[in-house]
């Protein structure tokens, strides 16, 4: 008897041991990832999430075989899959294939019979002909190279009086649309993007960062003295920090130079909109939902010292109109869906593999995310986890109107992350479409989406009313009949007693 119990305890101990080992291993597997991944719930509280991306590799200049990088400013992946790196401090642009083998170095070029050098190039862009456009910042020009690396065009300072004539012209980023119009972000120019036609002639500014003074500011300005007025923070429009163009010609721009003071003093920080999707006329058409947190990066930033809002330096466009923004303040990557709802946020400032010091640019290479660090002079490669793939899969299927498959994918996302409200909404939309109205109501309640809940509830109510209408009416008519009979009888009795 005693022996048996010992054996049993042994089993239990072994089971316990395996459990502990499993837990420790799990912790170890988690500890490889030096950051937390999270989303926000409807109250704006961060809630834990499985990792959507994990660091895969760190590429320094040495591992890439090009010497060390120096203050690299920009990453760009061309339509054919080549990776362009603006190695600004070394005054060159590096080109790699998708396996990070060096393909070309753009450093000097021949132009009008002379050999020209790049100087501190801050931005690169490649169009569908594989023509490379370099924002040659310190030389104040944009240089166009053809697919063989030969310079074919140089666009200098735009010929216009609208730019401050005493300021040097320093283009930082450049994008082109399908019609080969050139949009330039230049240092110190806050009227928006500088728009040039395909020959480099100035056409105007686009998407100016409009300043809307609120009523309170106006009131203060009215009663303030001239000296006080001079001391007030001037609400100047902010500059754009980066621009990316999508396949349909919308330009995503980010603003980073939003001063902390400006945000603190503005009554409605939502007005600042750190990421915008500009259409051809320069209007912001970024989709956001009512009753949802807008895409502004971190929401619960607390108060006091260090409570600085996120400042976006770059944006990368993913599948199904999702987009990824890079915050340089806390070194974070935010993944948003097409409605501007946060799918995952991760990253932090630090010195471990997968953390950043000076994140400056982000881009997709296939399904991997590359983040450029301009202080550690390296590229960090992130690969999606199964969870991350599922997130994008669910979004893609919904975008392609494969609702049932999308719901199945959301269901799997939900199994991996019960905190994710958007997953409940994804499942709920399929339930609503499939006619499972009360299930859809429950999903939308968990997704905290009143408008969708209302839609599901309306259908559910109609079903209930239709089902029980006949019973209800019969009961009502019955009651009325009983009441009439009782009243008639009572009246007759009263008449009899009176008589």
């Amino acid at each position, binding site marked *: 008897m005693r022996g048996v119990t010992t054996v049993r305890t042994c089993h239990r101990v072994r089971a316990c041991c395996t459990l502990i080992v499993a837990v420790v291993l799990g912790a170890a597997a988690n500890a490889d990832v030096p950051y937390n991944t999270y989303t926000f719930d*409807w*109250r704006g509280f961060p809630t834990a999430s499985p990792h959507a991306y994990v660091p895969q590799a760190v590429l320094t200049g040495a591992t890439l075989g090009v010497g060390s990088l120096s203050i690299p400013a920009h990453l760009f992946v061309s339509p054919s899959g080549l990776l362009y790196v603006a190695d600004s401090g070394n005054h060159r642009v590096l080109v790699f294939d998708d396996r990070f083998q060096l393909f070309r170095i753009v450093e000097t070029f021949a132009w009008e019979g002379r050999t020209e050098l790049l100087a501190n190039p801050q931005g690169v862009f490649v169009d569908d002909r594989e023509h490379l456009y370099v924002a040659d910042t310190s030389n104040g020009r944009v240089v166009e190279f053809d697919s063989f690396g030969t310079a074919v065009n140089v666009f200098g300072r735009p010929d216009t009086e609208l730019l401050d004539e005493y300021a040097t012209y320093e283009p930082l980023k450049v994008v082109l649309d399908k019609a080969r119009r050139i949009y330039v972000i230049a240092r110190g120019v806050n009227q928006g993007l500088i728009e040039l036609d395909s020959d480099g002639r100035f056409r105007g500014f686009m998407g100016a960062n409009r300043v809307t003074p609120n009523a309170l500011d106006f009131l203060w300005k009215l009663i303030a003295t001239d000296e006080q007025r001079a001391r007030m923070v001037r609400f100047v429009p902010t500059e754009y920090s980066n621009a990316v163009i999508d396949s349909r010609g919308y330009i995503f721009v980010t603003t980073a130079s939003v001063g902390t003071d400006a945000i603190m003093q503005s009554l409605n920080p939502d007005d600042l909109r750190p990421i915008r999707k500009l259409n051809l006329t320069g209007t912001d058409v970024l989709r956001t939902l009512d*009753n949802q947190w807008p895409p502004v990066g971190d929401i619960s930033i607390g108060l006091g010292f260090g409570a600085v809002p996120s400042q976006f330096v770059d944006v990368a466009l993913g599948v199904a109109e999702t987009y990824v923004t890079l915050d340089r303040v806390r070194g974070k990557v935010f993944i948003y869906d097409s409605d501007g709802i946060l799918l995952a946020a991760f990253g932090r400032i630090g010195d471990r593999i997968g953390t950043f010091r000076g994140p400056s640019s982000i881009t997709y290479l296939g399904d991997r995310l590359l983040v450029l660090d301009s202080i550690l002079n390296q590229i960090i490669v992130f690969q999606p986890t199964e969870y991350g793939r599922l997130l994008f899969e669910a979004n893609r299927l919904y975008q392609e109107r494969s609702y049932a498959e999308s719901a199945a994918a959301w269901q799997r996302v939900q199994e991996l992350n019960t905190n994710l409200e958007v997953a409940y909404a994804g499942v709920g939309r399929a339930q609503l479409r499939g006619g499972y109205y009360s299930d859809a109501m429950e999903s939308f*309640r968990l997704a*905290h989406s*009143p*408008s969708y*809940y*209302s*839609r599901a*509830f*309306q259908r559910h*109510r109609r079903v209930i009313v239709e089902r029980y209408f006949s019973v209800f009416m019969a009961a009502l008519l019955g009651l009325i009949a009983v009441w009439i009979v009782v009243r008639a009888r009572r009246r007759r009795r009263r008449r009899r007693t009176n008589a």
Partner: protein
Amino acid sequence: MREIASDVRFSLFLTVHPFKGFWDLKHERRGSVRNGVIIVVLVTITEVFRRQATGFLFNYMTDTTRINLLAESLAILIPVFLWTLANWCLTALLDGDGSFRDIFIATSYALVPLIIINIPMVGLSHLVVEEEGAFYYFFTSFAVFWTGGLILLGTMVTHQFTLGKSILTALLTIVGMGLIIFVALLFFDLMQKMYAFVFTIVREIVYRM
């Protein structure tokens, strides 16, 4: 039993016949402090119930898993008490006829619409969709305005004021409530500072002994 039924009937009568109702409340001694307390407690329960049980469509900004019963109750009890106190302080100076007791009873009876409208509204909130929410919001704000009107008329009848004077009194009472809160906070702050002062002196003495 009959007494309770009569009291309930009178409180309902008062909500639709405020002039006669408040007059009888004071001069015919139809109300009592006990009934006033019961009404205030019922209003508190109604509010808590409303916060907890209103349908998701009209309650989605509330986290129903984290409702603090004490805070919700105090959010009703403190304003009622403050209003009575400030109104009494003020009307004593402005030749009002009502005693503290009269004011409390009139104020509490004026809260009855909050009970009789808001409880059915909890049911309604489970039956209407977002587009029909106007009905819900209309009735809930109607309850608030009704109660506000009753409080105003209650002041008027209890103190035998004119309408203009009772509106002025109501506004001054709100200012008075603010003053009371200010003085109370000041008092607590000073007490805390005094406590800290005495505490440090005692500690200093203990260290040097």
